[in-house]
């Protein structure tokens, strides 16, 4: 890592980068030609090219959002971003066939090791496209489709066409338009009726090149009575210039289905992380977003669930850590459109060294949605007097049978807790790390164990030097 990069990102442990070995790299900047070229390179059907072009024009017209951290948002130079970079010639199914330099990167991140131990399938995306992909044979034989999104479009065009852009239309916001125009990679999952995928499947996203834009698109369809747990992790090298990550995730949980979507985002602090995630839950379906935001310069991410069918349930657990120069503007949105639907949102944030953590949420209950229950809890810890914590919740209730509650509190780490742990032999720093890990516990307990252990280590690492 260069010295100037270290100034920007500090001691970010995933911050190394490998020499760039691109087979195709587009010039920086965005135009209709770039959009058409990406589509042509992937040999996409015409309808997809048309959607891309329409989305591009919408992106150009759409102003930047006026809320969130407009100062940081306006700092994005879209002309400096590289919108497509291909590192491998194809997506490998055998780990040994992955190019050596890329393999080394993922080895260092522990990806193949994790796959052997506890995953049902893995996709590893490097820059714009997947470089490695595998799925357990027994899942494949049950009809589970787990592909990178490009392969999903090639092999299951009819399913993609039915759902693509239906949950998050490109008109939704400037960044969903950008993603739709230049998307590349991401995951495509279809779980057939009644199939319960017992082990999590994982996607790992890595940006390696400078000024790179990663625009993966994920579409997960879980049919009636089926279930899946999808885990994604993200890292990037520590450059002194900015990268842009703008993903779109669309989830469809059919009747009685269960989707858990877990994210541990640990981008380096030169990455803008502007993601649109939305799910539709049909009758008696459950969608859970388990969302951890540790890295990035600016994150704006509000996982949403549209509760469309009677008895559907949404759960969002979100934690955010904001260190020096970081603004985590995260939250959740739940729209209750049907009766007997329930939702629970738990948001926890820690701000330190001048970081800013914001919860921004919205819950709406429509006129026709009877007997809904809503619970929103936001807790924040501010660890020093340079940092900031904000809460911006919106509740719109249009049905008299709804019971909704929201509560938020901001506090510092209790002196009594630190004192107690120190009397038990911990140093003050260890005590702080333990308390912070305990504060995040409702999140970590929902993660696969390996992720939880890693997250605890990461938070202990972030807490180093927090005393004095």
């Amino acid at each position, binding site marked *: 890592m260069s010295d100037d990069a270290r100034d920007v990102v500090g001691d970010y442990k995933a911050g190394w980068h490998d020499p760039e070995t691109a087979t195709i790299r587009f010039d920086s900047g965005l135009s209709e030609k770039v959009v058409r070229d990406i589509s042509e390179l992937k040999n996409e059907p015409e309808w997809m090219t048309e959607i891309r072009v329409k989305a591009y024009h919408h992106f150009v017209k759409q102003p930047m959002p006026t809320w969130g951290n407009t100062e940081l948002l306006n700092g994005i130079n879209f002309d400096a971003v590289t919108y497509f970079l291909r590192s491998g010639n194809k997506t490998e199914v055998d780990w040994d066939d992955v190019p050596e330099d890329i393999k080394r990167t993922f080895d260092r991140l522990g990806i193949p090791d994790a796959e052997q131990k506890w995953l049902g399938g893995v996709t590893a995306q490097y820059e714009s496209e997947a470089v490695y992909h595998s799925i357990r044979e027994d899942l494949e034989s049950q009809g589970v489709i787990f592909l990178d999104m490009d392969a999903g479009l090639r092999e299951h065009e009819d399913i993609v066409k039915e759902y693509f852009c239906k949950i998050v239309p490109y008109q939704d916001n400037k960044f969903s338009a950008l993603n739709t125009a230049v998307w590349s990679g991401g995951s495509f999952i279809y779980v057939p009726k009644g199939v319960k995928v017992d082990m999590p499947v994982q996607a790992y996203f890595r940006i390696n090149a400078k000024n790179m834009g990663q625009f993966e698109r994920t579409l997960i369809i879980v049919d009636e009575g089926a279930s899946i747990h999808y885990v994604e992790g993200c890292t990037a090298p520590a450059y002194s210039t900015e990268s842009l990550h703008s993903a779109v995730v669309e989830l469809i949980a059919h009747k009685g289905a269960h989707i858990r979507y877990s994210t541990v985002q640990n981008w380096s602090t030169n990455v803008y992380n502007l993601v649109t995630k939305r799910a539709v839950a049909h009758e008696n379906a459950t969608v859970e977003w388990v969302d951890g935001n540790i890295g990035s310069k600016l994150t704006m991410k509000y996982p949403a669930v549209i509760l469309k069918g009677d008895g559907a349930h949404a759960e969002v657990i979100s934690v955010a850590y904001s260190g020096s120069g970081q603004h985590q503007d995260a939250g959740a949105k739940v729209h209750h459109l049907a009766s007997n639907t329930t939702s629970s949102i738990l948001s926890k944030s820690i701000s330190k060294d001048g970081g800013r953590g914001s919860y921004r949420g919205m819950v709406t209950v429509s006129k026709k949605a009877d007997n809904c229950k809503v619970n929103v809890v936001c807790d924040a810890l501010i660890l020093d007097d340079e940092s900031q914590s*904000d*809460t911006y*919740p919106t*509740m719109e209730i249009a*049905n*008299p049978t*709804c019971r909704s509650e929201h509560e938020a509190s901001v506090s510092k780490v209790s002196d009594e807790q630190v004192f107690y742990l120190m009397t038990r032999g911990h140093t003050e720093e260890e005590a702080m790390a333990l308390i912070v890990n305990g504060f995040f516990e409702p999140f970590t307990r929902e993660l696969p164990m390996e992720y939880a252990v890693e997250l605890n280590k990461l938070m202990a690492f972030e807490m180093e030097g927090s005393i004095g």
Partner: protein
Amino acid sequence: MSAPDRAEHLWRYTPWHRIHPTGNPDDIPVELSPALVNLSLLDGSEAPEEVTISALDNDIERDVNDDIAAAFIRALPASGAVKVTIPDGMVLDQPLLLTIEGGGDISGIQIEISVGSNSQTELLTIIESGVNWFGLLRSGTIHPSAIFNDIVLNRLEDTKLLRIEQFNLLSDCQAKFGTIGVGGSRTKGDLRYFLTGNGANLQVNGSIFSAGEQHNDHHVEIMHEISHTYSRLKWHSSCSDKSRTIGTGMLRIAHGAKGSDSAQVFNNLLLSRDAEADSIPELEVLENEVVGCGHGTANGPIDEGQMFYLQSRGFSESEAQDLLVASFLNATMKEMGGNTIHNWLDKLILGGAYTQT
């Protein structure tokens, strides 16, 4: 000044043109009738001589941060401006009563209130009129160690009310600001309180009864700008028929405001299928050494158990509902002032102000 963006939650539910007297955001009406103002004691006797009400020069520079709504009311010609001065050390057993009656079609008034140091007073302001639009701009300072209870009662008829308020709380004062909303067709309130003196203590209470097609939108900002300040906000709204209540708030703890203790709660009671209640209670905390800082909102219907209990005691369904709504609104109203003022307001409730059936 351009019309504000609806992305700001202050203007999300009542955009500027919908509370503007003519609906045209660029229009400043020239035909304006001044409001009649009268100050007395609540028991009907004259206010003490030391408490003065005087005309205020509308052209003087004021130390307030005007945004579009406040600037608009100031720009209205002949809207009238008065200053109410409560001298230092004044202690009154009987609350002051300020009645404001709008005239003509469009009416408004600016009131500056100065509450002297070490005084102990209560002020009940009642706005009544049948005008189409009324603008009320109140500003003032609560001086050190004053104890001040302030209540504004909206008894307007079919009127659009734009109410802007900015108060500055100095050291060790104890101020309660209460809002009772029963009238008006559309109300937009923007109430801001700045705790700028060490030890300032603020309570803000709201008791809002919405029925018919009323639209009640109140935005409350509380700014802890200095250390060791205290604030509580409790806002209760009931919402029936096709009415809509909105409670938005901003609680801000500035950098350096150590030892701040603050909390806000918005509770909404929804009584009909066509009613709607919206809340955005916001927090911005820039200081970690706080005693506490939190907010909460809750929405729900009338408790079925309570309804059943009252009906089992012989109340009809509508009587039971009226009683429960009144007690819900009374929960914040009883915090607003001393016994005298509360008994007076109690009669208002018994007189049917909170009865919808």
